[in-house]
């Protein structure tokens, strides 16, 4: 099972290059797509979800041409958009039932069982008869997850799925994703590195429509081994430090500012070695120097 994205380009009329020659090979399992806001994640997701056409490029899911065989790919697809609304005056059960039917679950009994099971999985069963529009943000997100997972999709595309979920809900959702990823390609788009670090064996970093990194998550971090340093400075010295060093991130710690810099060697004696993590990798990738 493989999703192959080949030289995908998408330009918007306002001149924004949303995708610039994006190529990826995504095997079965969880795949993380990391990027800052406006990086092109959602455009890529929508193209994968057959909602938008690229200007050029190809996408194949196994042997299926995603751009040419939309009806076929839709029958294998589960999609959770970043932001969505719902029909007014419609209960969760009704709406999920509606979606399940459209997904081809036409046998009433098995559909009902699937919908009930899904509602229980996302902890919405007790609220199944409430209008979805009256749900809280977290509940609505869970509803979105439920509809995406309905019908055992082989290609699951989830755009910022954990936004608005409390820690317990988030863990439960992560478990569900891991379970489904054993037999499906799951693409998880997010700007929260923690999710990817925790879930995805493979990942890509996207910025300004270009793929900056694609490969195993573990490899990404190992690239920075012994090249990340940290130092505590006064806030007033920050501009000077930025000029002197390749500062990847800063954070406030007990009234002092801690800067994290990238350097092949120890920049000066005050810098301490620092353990690289995915967040640092992301900052490194998206910093102008890192990109070069």
């Amino acid at each position, binding site marked *: 099972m493989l999703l192959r994205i080949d030289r995908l380009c998408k330009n918007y009329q306002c001149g924004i290059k949303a995708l610039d020659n994006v190529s990826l090979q995504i095997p079965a399992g969880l795949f993380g797509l990391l990027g800052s806001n406006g990086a092109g994640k959602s455009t890529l997701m*929508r193209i994968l*979800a*057959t*909602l*938008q*056409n690229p200007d050029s490029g190809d996408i194949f899911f196994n042997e299926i041409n995603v751009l*040419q065989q*939309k*009806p076929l790919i*839709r*029958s294998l*697809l589960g*999609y*959770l*958009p970043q*932001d*969505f*609304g*719902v*029909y*007014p*005056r*419609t*209960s969760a*059960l*009704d709406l999920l*039932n*509606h*979606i399940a*039917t*459209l*997904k*081809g679950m*036409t*046998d*009433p*009994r098995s559909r*009902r069982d699937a919908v009930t099971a899904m509602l229980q999985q996302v902890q919405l069963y007790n609220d199944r*008869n*409430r*209008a979805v529009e*009256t749900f809280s943000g977290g509940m609505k997100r869970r509803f*979105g997850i439920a*509809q995406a997972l309905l019908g055992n999709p082989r290609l699951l595309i989830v755009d910022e799925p954990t936004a608005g979920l409390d820690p317990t809900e988030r863990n439960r959702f992560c478990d569900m994703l891991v379970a489904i990823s054993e037999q499906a390609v799951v693409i998880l788009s997010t700007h929260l590195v923690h999710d990817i670090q925790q879930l995805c064996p493979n990942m890509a970093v996207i910025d300004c429509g270009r793929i900056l990194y694609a490969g195993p998550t573990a490899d990404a971090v190992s690239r920075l081994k012994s090249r990340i340093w940290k130092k505590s400075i006064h806030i007033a010295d920050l501009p000077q430090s930025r000029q002197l060093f390749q500062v990847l991130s800063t954070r406030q710690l007990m009234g002092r500012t801690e800067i994290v810099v990238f350097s092949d060697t120890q920049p000066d004696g005050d810098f301490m070695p620092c353990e690289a993590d995915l967040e640092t990798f992301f900052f490194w990738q998206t910093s102008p120097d890192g990109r070069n």
Partner: protein
Amino acid sequence: MFRTVFLFELAFWMRSRFLALCLLFTFTLTYLSLTTEFIRIRAPLGARFLNSPIAVQNHYILYSDLCDLMIVAVAVLAASRDFTCRTTGIIFSTGVSEVPWLLGRFAATAIVATMPALGILAGFLLATCSPWIDHEKFTANSFLPHLYGLILFCAPTILLYTTCGFVLTLRLKNAHTPILLFASLTYAISLILNLLIDRDYQALAALLDPNGHIGFYQHFWYWTAQERSTSVVGFTVPLLLNRLLWISVSCAVLMITCRTYKFSEQSTDENSRRRTVGVRRLRMETSAFDQVAALLPDSLLKLLHVTFFNLRHTVLSPLLMILTMYFLYFLCLPLFFDVDEFKTRSLPVTSAIIDQIIEASDTATRFFIVVAAGLLVHRDRDTRFHEIMDSLPHSAVVIPTGRLLALMLSILILPFIGILTGILSQTTRDYWHLQIPVYLSALFGPVTWEYCCIAVAAMLVQTLAPGKITGYLLLICGASVSALMVPILDGGVLPVFGAFPQVVYSDFHGYAPWFRSLLTTGIWNLLLFGLFHTAVILLWKRGVDSAYLVRLTEIRHRLTGPLKPAAGALCVLTTGYILFLLLNQPDHQFSAQEHIAHAAQYEQLLRRRFEHLPHPVVTSAAYDIDLFPDRRAFKLKTDLTLENTDSEPQTTVILNTRRGFRTTVRIDRGYLLEDYPELMCSIYRLDPPLLKGERIHLRASVDYAPTAAELYISNKLVLPNGSFLSPDEFTLIGYRSAGELQGKTLRRTHNLEDRSSQQSLDPADQQARRRQLLDPYGRLTRFETVIGTAADQIAVAPGTLVNTWRQKDRQYFHYRMDPPSVHNPVILSAQFKVAREVWNGVDTEIYYHPDHAWNVPDMMLGMHRTLEYGSRNFSPYQFSFCRVLEFPRVHSESLRGIAFPGVMPYSESSGFTSDLRDPASFNTAFYVVSHEVAHQWWGYQLLPADIEGGKVLLETLADYTAMMVFEREFGAEFTRRFLEHRTNHYLSSRLAQEDSEPPLARSRIDQGHLFYSRGSLVMYHLRQLIGEDRINTALRNLLQKFGGGNPPYATSLDLLESLRQQTPIEHHQVLDELFNQITLFQNQTRSATAQKLPDNTWQVTLLVECRKIRSDGDGREQDIPFEQFVEVGAFSAPQGGRRFGEPLYQKLHLLKSGSNSITFKTQERPETAGIDPFLILIDRTPKDNVVEVRTP
């Protein structure tokens, strides 16, 4: 704080598109209503100018009346904004307190809701400046009526409605329920007001009317035409009271809300619970659906699922609920309260109820389709659910088709509710002939198909439009353009999409006459429906890119599977059908404008040359007609004998044939000189000329069958059951002035001189008296009619039935008119049931539909009583037969009855279906039959000349005779009801006339309010003065003098002379006033008191005010001295729904102008008393004549 909130709110609305749209709406509506014919906001009667002060004020009243929901919507939007935008937390935590927030926002909202009314002012100003208006319809602009309209009518009503919307929203915290509640509230109030008016509580209704509408109309109701054109309705006491009442109610409600409203009240728990309950109910419906659906294939199941999922949403939407309430309001009013002009109700026959359902639901349904189509097409995007929906594996067909089906199914809701209401109204009135199949055929009839066409067109427009609002605007523009285009498109060969023939159900023939035209238009509309829907499927927005280029490239991908051959087949079939229509030349429906243009052209071309030209006249006629009812075809052969009855030789014959029928004509000695096929007129030259006493034959034949591709019914003469035609109308000879255009403006716009179609009444002009009104180019004629018809039908024509026989499975009837009569033949053929009796050797017969036997005995009685009265008082009845025949209502919606010689067709929708079960109802069946039978004297024995006042001899005398017969049969109680209607009809119609009003003796052919209404009142007045016997003697004398049937024919002056001979000299002045002048009265009983006398009798004293007014033709009035006998009456308490009880006193008193005191004695204490209680004088204020008697 108030200021901040107020200014912020005002600024918010100023930026909103909604306010701009509302303003544009009122402006456009006003402007178009003033400058075009497409939108007509009816100006109050009698206002000469479109911008007369009361017409201007009426616009402001209509704004608050028609746009009430718009006003409430503004209030609801303002009050609910913080809840819907979820800004309550921010706003209410700023420290603003409740009262300034509430008052500030309310004040700004009220001002905003009033602003669209300024569109009216702009509309008027721009309309009067537009160069293309008819300047004679406008007077100089004045701002005063606008100011009064705004302050007196608009502002208080808007204050009330805004308060309602605002307070209800604050209390209920949602946007839909207040609108629903408000709609129900206005519905209930309108019902109450209608009931009050119906029960004659006019003053109370005027006080309680939230719009001030009733008070406004009541105030100017008795104004003169002059006043109506120049005066403004100002601050009168009843209006002020009404306005103050509703302003106080608004202020009180607002104050209570200010005192009790707390920000902390806002909580959505209650709402959430309510919603849960609502959706639970939905859930159960889904389960039932699932069980059925389990048996269906997958794709169909998805389609059905989408259909019902959307149907549920549409049906349960607030939009449909509000529209249902409006529909029910407009349906229930006629269904439960409608009465005819004499306050007699019709039986609730199913066909009439269906008409009312269609009429009441039409606007609501069209509005619903347009709005719902927008909501359905843009639903996913509006709710931001589209990304999920569009990524689901459904084919391109499923969602658009499912939503279209949902829309089409929800269109059935209103008629379905209408049918249930209709059945309820029938059963509550103990009417059990329910005709469920007829109801169902109406539910799924052409009207519904038409709505389906609108639905698919609206969905296509919305699919193409970038957004919902743009879609609505496009639809409004499209509707306006297509309304403008209809006359152009109608003239073309191809029918307009969505156009169906207008079907009228009749118990005689059901919908059968329309089968062919429904099939032709149905196939056309179905093909276009398919093409339009295919376009919707192919262009439906899916995904996040909705650019047109993207959607066009998508078409290739969507046009797969069965959709591809289906679309191809549709294209091929449509092309084929267009070819079929082009080859078969469907019939062309002439528009009203075309008819008018033809009439103008006819007059311009022919009048000067031929109006006074001596012309041969018809002296005998023979018609041979073969009706083929099932095919709606007929063959007619006409043989007319034309004779020169003048001394001079005649050389010209003008022949007018009937539009839409190919007529072949041959005239002895005649050859075609001029031919005007557009005008259906040909001019023949006779060579050698026709000398005095010489006769020639005009032979014509018509062979008519409907075309194969019939788009509508071009003629309804021959129907499967219930044919009704006048065979002489296919070959009318001579110049026909009756078809000339009437009305100043119409004539002016067609460059015709301002004149009447009739010759003016000049006693010296003997030439003008040589043509008679009913048949200007005929003398007393012997005519024969042979009719062949279907074997199961009876055909009837004037004359004695000479023979009837059956041949080749067809039935033939031969009628011969003997003695000779006015040449006015008619043929009716249907599956009749016949009621036969004999009166003094005359066969009296009623031919009727077997299901309509309810009132046949009353009609038979009316016929006998009138024959008896006429024979005894005027002259013997001239024929050996007297026949009343029922005809299907499709032949004429307005016509009730019409008299031919000895044969009187009577409409299915009138007396045959009047509800006469209540003895207190005016017996319309009896009355109309009596009126038509009276025409056998007044029209067929006394032949009036074709000059002004001729109709008085026909209609006034027939009405007089019928009412004399009626009063004898049913009593004087009904006289008042009859005269009250006649008074109101005369007074209101005279104000609506464009031309100046002539006196009765000079009334013209189109002035029914004179020869019917004023005529009846005049004859009653005369009867009160000189008595029935003297009038009847005068009429008998008139008949003896002019009843021979030969020229000179009688005029209204002859009637007047005959009456004068029977009138005592002291009443000659009054006689003159009645016939030769326009005289009105304004009588009022100020008080009536009764005092018991020692001899147990009662002395009654009346204080009355009398005024007599003379009006000129243009409505300028002047008081004239008054000394005249006027009836004074006192009555016991009324019973059984009657207006008065038994008369305790009824006598003529000589009264003078100004105040009069009258004293008389009665045996019992009277309940009511007054002057002219039966409204015999034409009283401008008829309601204040009789008052309650008080005891001091």
